[in-house]
């Protein structure tokens, strides 16, 4: 397959790495400006950090300079007998003290700098991460339908981490390098401008070399990333489809394809190694050459008495340091490239506009009676693929209505639309005569309680799952809500009662218990309108089943209730039944009337409810 006439170059790639294939340049001015915008609130600290960084550069450059004075002013004159040994010893002491204080200063600056960088970087990325989270929470469900949770998780964890690395390490390192190079250049000129000129001869060579290798590295990194993505996508796909691979005796050919991709990757990696194996020695060699040139030139001037040995040694040391930043260029390049790719992905998410927004001048929703009206509503999740077609009905305040229909009839969509998880394409939905789109989402949802099919349990306690984050709901209210929906008995049997810790996705609770908890949650918020999605829940024991049925009946009293029912008892208890078929309302009426009509409802009843009741009682 790897050579199948260029059909994507063996491009076996699933979504595994698809979006992660954004490669990123090492520097993108637009993204960088935007990223640096997150540092703005901390600009005072950033300036302090830069000053410290500059101080650090001086402190790092100072020791070789002090060593120069130690040699030129104390040791060399004493050795050559210009001053007495005792004079030499006594001159050593102050330089030693200075040296130690510079060392101390350097250590303090370095520590302070890393603390500041961490503080600023972490806080700025805190802002970005929380901002991203808030933004995501505000996006519509359409967005969540299309983006797998895993992908969003990668954005909010790994990508932000890569950016934090860049801010706390990458940017600091680059500024530090620039400062050190400038400070060294200045110090060299001050120490001896002629020798400095000799040193600077190496700069054009270095610049040319770096430019050349940077291009090589960019190409090489690019090739590596693309090929690695392909290898991993291939692995992911083939491991996922291993059964098919084996059933169709495809092992050896698929191995051959994989080997081809893997070999491609190896070759790209070897290219990268070759580039670096040439680059690093080249830099070292240039450095050695520069040192030699300095020694030769300096010796000429020293022999002529125009230069001291100490200056030569200072130059030798400083030139070593001058080259150091270039050595780990590729590492910084990697950090920057990863960060640029991450920021592009993160910003792309931040730039996603929510499709459902509050109107600029929302209508007030002070007192809700609870009348719900669908007025010629048509709705599709995907353009043209209608789920609801021209649906019209009115549910008066306080009425309880069941919506029935075969799978795919559009029942769930009705619940989602009343909560305004989605907007309708045609027609309108009215709450007490007001179009949902003229209201604040929050106002609507405050009055509309929802019990979802798969009761979602948050990590926390039983009580926190009932009141969620709403602290105005007192412990007493939590308890009475639980009691009202028959959840109190099982809760009180739990080891810590309402304070029992429940784990993620509620794995410690049974399905029935979770459902009761979801009822309690809905009732604690005391909504005027209640939506219940109650489609076939399997494995609920008879006792719990009775509790649920009883709770449901109590919930419906005194408030508008719209229920997607799967229990016969529920549909027998409601005021009216709306029968949906293929996205259309086909029948409306009471259980008795509809049965008598012997239409769609009758058949549904035979199929779903009677059969269910029969198997439940068996």
């Amino acid at each position, binding site marked *: 397959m790897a050579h199948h006439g260029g*059909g994507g170059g063996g491009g*076996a*790639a699933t979504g595994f790495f698809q979006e992660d294939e954004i490669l990123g340049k090492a520097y993108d001015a637009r993204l960088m400006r935007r990223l640096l915008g997150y540092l703005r609130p901390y600009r005072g600290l950033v300036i302090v950090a830069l000053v410290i960084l500059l101080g650090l550069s001086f402190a790092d450059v100072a*020791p070789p300079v002090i060593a120069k004075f*130690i040699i030129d002013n*104390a040791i*060399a004159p*004493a050795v050559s007998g210009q001053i007495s040994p005792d004079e030499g010893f006594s001159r050593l002491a102050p330089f*030693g003290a200075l040296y130690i204080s510079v*060392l101390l200063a*350097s*250590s303090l600056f*370095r*520590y302070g700098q*890393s*603390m500041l960088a*961490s503080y600023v970087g*972490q806080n700025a990325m*805190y802002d970005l991460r*929380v901002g991203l*989270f*808030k933004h995501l929470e*505000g996006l519509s*469900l359409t967005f969540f339908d299309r983006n797998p949770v895993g992908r969003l998780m990668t954005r*909010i964890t790994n990508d932000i981490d890569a950016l934090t690395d860049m801010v706390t390490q990458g940017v600091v390192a680059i500024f530090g390098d620039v400062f050190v190079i400038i400070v060294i250049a200045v110090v060299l000129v001050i120490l001896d401008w002629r020798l400095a000129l000799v040193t600077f001869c190496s700069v054009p060579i270095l610049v040319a070399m770096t430019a050349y290798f940077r291009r090589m590295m960019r190409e090489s990194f690019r090739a590596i990333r693309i090929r690695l993505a392909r290898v991993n996508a291939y*692995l992911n796909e*083939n*491991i996922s489809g291993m059964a*098919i*691979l*084996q*059933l169709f005796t*495809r*092992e050896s050919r698929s191995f051959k394809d994989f080997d081809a991709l893997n070999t491609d990757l*190896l070759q790209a990696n*070897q290219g990268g190694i070759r580039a670096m*194996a040439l680059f690093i*020695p080249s830099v*070292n060699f240039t*450095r*050695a*050459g520069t*040192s030699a040139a300095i*020694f030769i030139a300096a*010796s000429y001037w*020293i*022999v002529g008495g125009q230069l001291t*040995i100490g200056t030569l*040694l200072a130059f030798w040391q400083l030139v070593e340091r001058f080259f150091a930043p270039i050595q780990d260029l590729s590492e910084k390049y990697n950090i920057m490239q990863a960060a640029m790719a991450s920021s592009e992905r993160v910003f792309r998410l931040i730039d996603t506009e929510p499709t459902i927004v509050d109107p600029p001048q929302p209508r007030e929703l002070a007192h809700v009676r609870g009348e719900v009206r669908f007025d010629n509503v048509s709705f599709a999740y995907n353009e043209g693929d209608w789920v609801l077609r021209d649906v019209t009905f009115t549910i008066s305040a306080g009425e309880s209505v069941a919506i029935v229909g075969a799978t795919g009839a559009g029942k769930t969509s009705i619940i989602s639309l009343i909560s305004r998880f989605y907007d309708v394409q045609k027609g309108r939905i009215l709450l007490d005569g007001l179009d949902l789109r003229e209201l604040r989402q*929050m106002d609507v*949802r*405050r009055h509309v309680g*929802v019990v*979802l099919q798969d009761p979602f349990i948050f990590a926390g306690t039983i009580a926190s799952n009932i009141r969620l*984050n*709403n602290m105005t709901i007192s412990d007493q209210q939590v308890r009475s809500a639980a009691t009202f929906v028959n959840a109190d008995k099982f809760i009180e049997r739990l080891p810590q009662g309402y304070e029992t810790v429940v784990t993620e996705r509620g794995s410690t609770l049974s399905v029935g218990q979770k459902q009761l908890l979801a009822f309690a949650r809905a009732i604690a918020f005391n909504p005027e309108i209640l939506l219940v999605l109650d489609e076939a829940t399997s494995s609920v024991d008879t006792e719990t089943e009775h509790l649920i049925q009883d709770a449901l009946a109590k919930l419906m009293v005194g408030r508008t209730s719209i229920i997607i029912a799967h229990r016969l008892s529920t549909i027998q208890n409601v005021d009216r039944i709306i029968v949906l*078929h293929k996205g259309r309302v086909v029948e409306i009426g009471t259980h008795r009337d509809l049965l008598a009509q012997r239409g769609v409802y009758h*058949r549904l009843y*035979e*199929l779903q409810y009677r059969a269910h009741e029969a198997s439940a009682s068996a």
Partner: protein
Amino acid sequence: MTSARATFFHYLGQRKTQLAIGIICAAATALAGVVPPRFIGAIIDALQQGTTFQTVVLLALASVAFSAADAVFRGIARYLLLNTARQAEYQMRNDLFAHLQEMHLAYFQHQRIGDLMARLTNDLTAVRQMLGPALMQGSFTIMTFVFAVLSMLGVSVKLTVISMILMPVASLAFWYVGRKVHIRFERLQAKFGDLSTKAQENFSGIRVVKAFSQEDPEARDFARINREYVGRAIALTSVQGLIWPTMSFVLGLAVLSVLYIGGQDAIRGELTLGQLVQFVAYLYLLSWPVIAIGWISNMFQAGWASLVRLQEIFDAKPAIADPIDAVTSPIKGEVELRGVSFAYGQTIVLDDVTFKVPAGGSLAIVGPTGSGKSTLVNLIPRLFDVQQGEVLIDGINVRRFPLQQLRRSVGYVPQETFLFSVPLRENVGFGLDRALTEAQIDWAGDVSQLNKDVEDFPARYDTMIGERGVTLSGGQKQRTAIARAVAKDPRVLILDDALSAVDTYTEAEILRRLRGVMRERTSIVVAHRISTVKDADEILVLDDGRIAERGAHRDLLERGGLYAQMYRRQLLEEELEVDEEREEHEKRVKHAEEELGFGMRPPLGGRGAEPPDR
């Protein structure tokens, strides 16, 4: 079972020569690296004593020669050692994939794909970093350390002792801080876990969050956790940030004490100025190893832990393998199960199932969800092996056929369609060694009713499938899977609920064509719809892992048992479906009209069911 240690040496051992030369080059690098300070010392001494310019030039050039040697050897060592690691990584990745190819289906059900992928990516990288950068830097570091200390001893034992006294202090500090770093890092990771959980929970439970208007409070809670995370990250930096300043301070102190005490020695004439400079130069050479050692040991630890995780994959043994005494007689297609029982752990899925389908016969299996239908058909191509009883083909236990031969003669359409992101043509020809001929693909496409869909694809059968190409509908996917199984020209064809996403009209077309194709082959069809199974020679009704009823359609209806109940329910369902059928039919007609060129009129008449345009 091999150990991680054996694996480590296995992969390095395959490139022994390259590795040995690389390490020798690393030694040569370190050796060449300690020479230049000697020349620099000589230059200083020469300058002190007054010398000719030529002498200095010669000494400087000699120094450069050694630096050049250092650079060249470093380049070679770097290339060889990193390359060894990359080749080992390549080899390991290939071996892991080949090993996984041999693993049985149950392994992949047990082991999560995400976890396997994490091992094949992150862990493999960590191992490669251990074999490459860590090994290389380790070699440089150790040898530089040895040669530098030896050279220092050659200059002055006293100064060596003085400068080395500080090293244990540095190690001790490093060890102490390192422990704190470890603890705080764990604490940070724990908080990171909380943070991920919070985000994950919110994204998965977004409906509840929105329904109860919990966006703001949840965001506040996320911010709170995040704030704690930031606090711990800064707390980590506050100890981690100590390491480097401390190290450089200790190193600076060593240099200062050498300058101070060595300077006094020089003044007293016990040491030349050149020797003093030479000594300081050695200390600078040591600075990198001192800093790098912690980093290298971290890489080794992480790499080893990852190697152990990869070893776990290698250690898993395939439960389903080729027989030793293989039977290679050609398969005709008689399928028989004799007293077969099967359980996943404690759950019994099949209980004493016995049946026989003669070569060329047809068998259908129906039954409620979870009754063991899929498991049953999985046993025939040995995706699983039975725990009790026997599965026989042509009277021979399937375990005695070579796996390849067995699976080549079985065409299998699984319940969950899995297609590969390669062109459609390759998906259809997936089970064939040679590329499909046009005639073959046309035939398979006709049987599976895929041809008419393909007409609409941009590059017909060369269209890419998946995220990079067209997204197929559920029905199209199933029909591709049918074409894929048929194209193999199998002796036994198994359809595991493979027509569920295909509309009944197309289903009938496919079944009609399949009957033609399957006249001389054995077919086993698992289905929910009576329409799919009613023409089979024999129908098995599976309930809770046991055969509840068996017989032909008519007999089963007369019996009035489970099958008859199913039948009655489906008649009702079909009544509900009638509208859809009609619509589907209308669409088909419209499509045909458009094809013929006279369907392009505005949709006014004949669509009375549509709501009037508002």
